[in-house]
């Protein structure tokens, strides 16, 4: 498979079926939402849902915006892209443990992109900072290998 094709998938260049009407060539907008440890988040998650999303002081349903200032890239045979800024939930109180963040496309009907799970946490009158991995073919947040 052409590595260029993998990168172009991340750029939305190909459509083998009925696609979406894009408003322009600009990048879509993405968001990150947190989910309770009791939820079953994973590859079967198809769209953002408020069901089992965390709730608490300072947290807005739908989560926070995710910044992709660096476009998809490819190294070797792997295409990859990673948010260019940390995902930060500031000044929140989330007393029910959560262990997953859903990355989703808020431009395209809130369709799910990926689920990232971690050790269950709570936050009290504080900030959760998710620091992104190195944006390369080995560790990038989203990779087509």
């Amino acid at each position, binding site marked *: 498979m052409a590595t260029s094709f993998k990168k172009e998938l991340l750029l939305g260049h190909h459509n083998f079926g009925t696609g979406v009407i894009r408003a322009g060539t600009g990048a879509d907008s993405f968001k990150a939402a947190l989910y309770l440890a009791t939820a079953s988040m994973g590859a079967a998650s198809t769209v953002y849902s408020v069901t089992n999303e965390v709730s608490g002081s300072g947290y807005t349903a739908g989560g926070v915006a995710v910044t992709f200032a660096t476009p998809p890239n490819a190294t070797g045979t792997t295409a990859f892209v*990673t948010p260019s800024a940390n995902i930060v939930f500031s000044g929140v109180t989330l007393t029910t443990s959560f262990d997953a963040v859903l990355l989703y496309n808020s431009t395209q009907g809130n369709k799910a992109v990926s689920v990232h799970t971690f*050790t269950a946490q709570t936050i*009290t009158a*504080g900030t959760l900072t998710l620091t992104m991995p190195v944006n390369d073919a080995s560790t990038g*947040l989203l990779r087509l290998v």
Partner: protein
Amino acid sequence: MAEIFTTLGMVEESTLVKTEGTTENENETTQWQEWRKDGVIVKREVQMQLKQGVFMPAEASL
């Protein structure tokens, strides 16, 4: 003297008991801090370094 935001509002940090720790596994390194007043957590923060994202094997058959 520094005040920090807690469930009790702004509180002088020196009046609280602070504990902190680090956990690590193959996916993340997590640092956390807790501040307690009379044994009750009044503030907890987490910084999580994601070590790696997710990948999808992209293969083409003949």
